[in-house]
């Protein structure tokens, strides 16, 4: 199937580009990555390459033409396929365009019932001076209108009708307005009186246009959707507790020493130790190692542990399958490896699905967070937030008080699936496991 080649959009402010040179000619065979044409904005030159294999079936603009961005400039497809639907000004609704090329005035086919157009202008166009003025001011290509005046003369009302049917925004401005919820302002500086992207305003009286709007990455969109869905579709609340971290800190110290001594190859972190402890607790509380799916719950036999990983592209929560089968070193190795894959972007997408894990741990302890309310990765029923270690006063017995490093634990659970008591007991179990962890 033939696909159009668009004049790419280079930046938020570029309305039109000058077509530089056609590297491929009409009829040439092209392969993905072949350079099709060069183009330039007022600031720089670019090259556009083919996004599909095929024949360059047609090109709609000549070298040197000023072409609005996002307008079709060519078509790639199989020999013999029709290109008409992609021709700017043709039937394709997306290909609204105007251009200043000498003989290439293009208008959108209007849909307003009062405006009649003819495909080809016949003879000299009859238009009143007033209508002509208005047409020029409003960017209406009157040559293709059918006048409603005496003897077919195009009169003011014809231009008014055509003008109402035409978009008031350039293609770029339309897209920007849609994406950012903006409207055309008082002034329109574009070709034919159309509002260009920079004419769009937000109507906010406080901050006006003192901001930059950046589009969400797909990643961000997914996260946003997941988070919002989570909070909307579950009954979340969080319990906070802290555990004496002296045991796991001692273990960490021990493993560090062993690593430095070359006795082991895996760097066992606090997080690894906490995860290990949590897996143990989950084995005792199988009702937490579940998915809540409305009228029923999935009780998992194995623990598939989700780990929230912060990456440049956003939060990822990969799952480690059968985590309860792993030794501490094995778990540590897998956690490290999968986090690395997330950061590199080559993680198996199946592992990222919320359904992949049965329980998630989100560790913000490294960042000094003392307490937070993590959001459940539904349909999982709970998530554990691991916080930083802070020295807290503790009764050491015999009236002796000392400062003990305590690690914060924030358990968010879905009250639909679990009751407070169960959750508290589970959290206490984690605390117990951490405080009494032995390998």
């Amino acid at each position, binding site marked *: 199937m033939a696909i159009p080649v668009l004049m790419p959009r280079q930046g938020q402010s570029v309305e039109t580009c000058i077509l530089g040179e056609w590297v491929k000619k009409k009829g040439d065979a092209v392969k993905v990555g072949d350079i099709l044409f060069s183009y330039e904005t007022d600031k720089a030159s670019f090259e556009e390459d083919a996004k599909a294999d095929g024949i360059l079936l047609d090109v709609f603009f000549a070298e040197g033409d000023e072409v609005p961005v996002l307008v079709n400039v060519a078509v790639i497809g199989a020999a013999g396929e029709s290109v008409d639907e992609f021709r700017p000004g043709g039937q394709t609704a997306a290909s609204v365009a105007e251009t200043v090329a000498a003989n290439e005035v293009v208008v959108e086919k209007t849909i307003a019932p009062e405006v009649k157009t003819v495909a080809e202008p016949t003879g000299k166009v009859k238009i*009143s*001076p007033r209508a002509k*003025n208005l047409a020029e001011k409003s960017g209406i290509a009157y040559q293709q209108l059918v006048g409603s*005046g*005496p003897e077919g003369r195009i*009169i*003011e009302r014809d231009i008014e009708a055509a003008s109402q049917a035409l978009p008031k925004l350039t293609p770029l401005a339309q897209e920007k307005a849609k994406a950012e919820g903006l409207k055309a302002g008082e002034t329109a500086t574009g070709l034919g009186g159309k509002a260009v992207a920079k004419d769009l305003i937000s109507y906010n009286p406080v901050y006006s246009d003192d901001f930059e709007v950046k589009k969400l990455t797909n990643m961000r969109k997914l996260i946003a959707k997941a988070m919002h869905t989570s909070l909307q579709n579950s009954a979340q609340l969080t319990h906070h507790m802290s555990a004496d971290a002296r045991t796991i800190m001692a273990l960490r110290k021990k493993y560090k020493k062993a690593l430095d001594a070359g006795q082991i190859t895996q760097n066992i972190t606090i997080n690894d130790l906490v995860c290990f402890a949590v897996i143990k607790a989950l084995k005792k509380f199988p009702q937490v190692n579940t998915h809540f799916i409305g009228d029923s719950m999935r009780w998992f036999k194995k623990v598939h542990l989700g780990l929230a990983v912060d990456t440049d592209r956003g939060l990822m929560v990969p799952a480690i399958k059968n985590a309860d089968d792993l030794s501490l070193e094995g778990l540590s190795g897998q956690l490290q490896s999968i986090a690395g894959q997330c950061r590199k972007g080559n993680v198996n997408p199946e592992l990222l699905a919320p359904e992949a894990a049965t329980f998630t741990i989100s560790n913000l302890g490294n960042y000094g967070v003392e307490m937070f309310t993590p959001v459940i990765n539904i349909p999982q029923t709970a998530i554990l937030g691991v916080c930083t270690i802070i020295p807290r006063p503790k009764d050491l017995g015999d009236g002796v008080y000392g400062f003990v490093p305590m690690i914060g634990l924030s358990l968010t659970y879905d009250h639909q699936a679990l009751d407070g008591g169960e959750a508290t007991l589970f959290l206490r179990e984690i605390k117990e496991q951490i405080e009494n962890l032995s390998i």
Partner: protein
Amino acid sequence: MHAFFTPFGVYPNNAIVGGSGDIAVGAALYKKVNRKDGIVVANIGDASMACGPVWEGLTFATMDQFNELWEGDMKGGLPLIINIMNNQYGMGGQTCGETAGYTIAARIGAGLNEDQLHAERVDGYNPLAVIDAYKRKRKILEEKRGPVLLDVLTYRYSGHSPSDASSYRSKEEVEAWEAQDSIAWFGRELVKAGVATEEQLVGVKGDTINLMESSMKLAIDLTISPRMDMAKYPNLIGEMIFGNESVDRMEDRAPDVNHPMAENARVQQLAKKERFAFDENGKAHSKIKTYAYRDGIFEAIIDRFYKDPTLIAYGEENRDWGGAFAVYRGLTEALPYHRLFNSPIAEAAIVGTAIGYAMCGGRVIPEIMYCDFLGRCGDQVFNQLPKWQAMSGNVIKMPVVLRVSVGSKYGAQHSQDWTALTAQIPGLKVVFPATPYDAKGLMNAALQGTDPVIFFESQRLYDMGEMFHKGGVPEGYYEIAIGEPDIKREGKDVTILTIGATLYRALEAADILQEKYGMSAEVIDARSLSPFNYEPVLASVKKTGRIIISGDASSRGSFMKEMAQTISELAFDDLDAPPVVVGSRNWITPAYELEDSFFPCAEWMIDAIHEKIVPLKGHVVKNNFTSAEQIRRNKLGV
């Protein structure tokens, strides 16, 4: 040729043969009515006695009413000498024996009044005979038994113009007259009588030649008598076309009136009239109670009669009858005969005498009963009235308000709107009010000025009450600036500019456009034709983009066409269609019963809009305004 010097009473020579024949009568009328000393001498050629306006002037000058009807010190004839310089020729035509039949010009007097104008033939080659004759005639004038006529026999040695080779006369004829030459003969007589010597005469002749030669040299010396610097002052001639003065009265003295204005029956009657056409509920007052268009004109005129002692008015049926359209009803009682009187049916004399009256310093309102009669006073309206202010370098003033009534209902020769004829002539101000408020305000402005104004009225309008000006027509004095159109109804979709009485048909069309087609029409009343301020019209067209221009004149060559062209030029970029003229057909005006097919009406205006400007949804035309029909009619000249 047009040299003049009013302090000496010398008025400019006229380039039209006989052109001053009636003007001179007006000058004598001025002296008489305003009790000025002196006499008026009309130097006129023997051939000009064939000109209609000269005859009309003589008819006017010999009206019986001067002796029969004018009262007190006004009783008696005009102080006017018709001095025929009978030089035997009019251009190449020889009056005696060829182009005239009077044989002796003095016999013309016999046809004019009982006194035969006290006409005498005088030997123009004998200065003493001429002096004697003038002494006799002057006495007659002082006895108020004028006017008088002198047939002063003389001869024209040279041709009429440099191109005249005298091919129509023999060398012997000229030599025979030269043998009798007045200067040579009278010189011999002086020597014979011992009054002068030959040498002295030679000296006088030499001095005279020198004087004339040096005068001519001074006149043609560009350093002493430079031409107008049109490069430096490109508007200099334009500035002389009109005086644009504002003068309450031409002379400061008590006016001759029969009673105080407040005692005037018409004035008292008007006080009881409704000065707005509708009552507070929008219902029209009865015609008899409504202050009408004719009342507006009357109020302005009677006001001026009591302000300006020089003001006189005359025309056909102006006294007693009160004018054919009752505008002057009540004036007869207020004014003595010499300020308001009936003229002979002689339009050339009516206008021509008014020109003479005004040139001498009086204000005057001549009236042409029907616009169709303008042709009867063509030279006066086209060549004399508009020209003398500028031709005199704006020294002479021309405070003449010529009332012209446009007819209807009276067929081909009594229903024509010839406004374009006057508006085309430089030097005339032309107005055509359509409402009582505008009529009074424009008449006040016309009478306050010192420029000639052609004041068109319409017989369709005399009964109209004031429908536009809030509060009705003010009782006091106010002026409406000549040249300012007036928006009678505001609108946004189409402009209808009207001249004269079509205003009311345009309003009717505006109603239909609104009700049937949802279009709001802006109706502008031109009120004046020249001068004319296009700015309000252009502003309207800027808004509406469309304009039709309507008036009762036949459309070809009409002032509507002038306006359409000007608007096209000035508003081209604002126009959504060409300005369209909806005037009368280029026919004779048919009988009253058929007038609907001749004069524009609301339906025509709508048809024209539909056909030429913007097609109206669902409109079915009844009249053919297509381009093809327009071409066809033009081909046929109808």
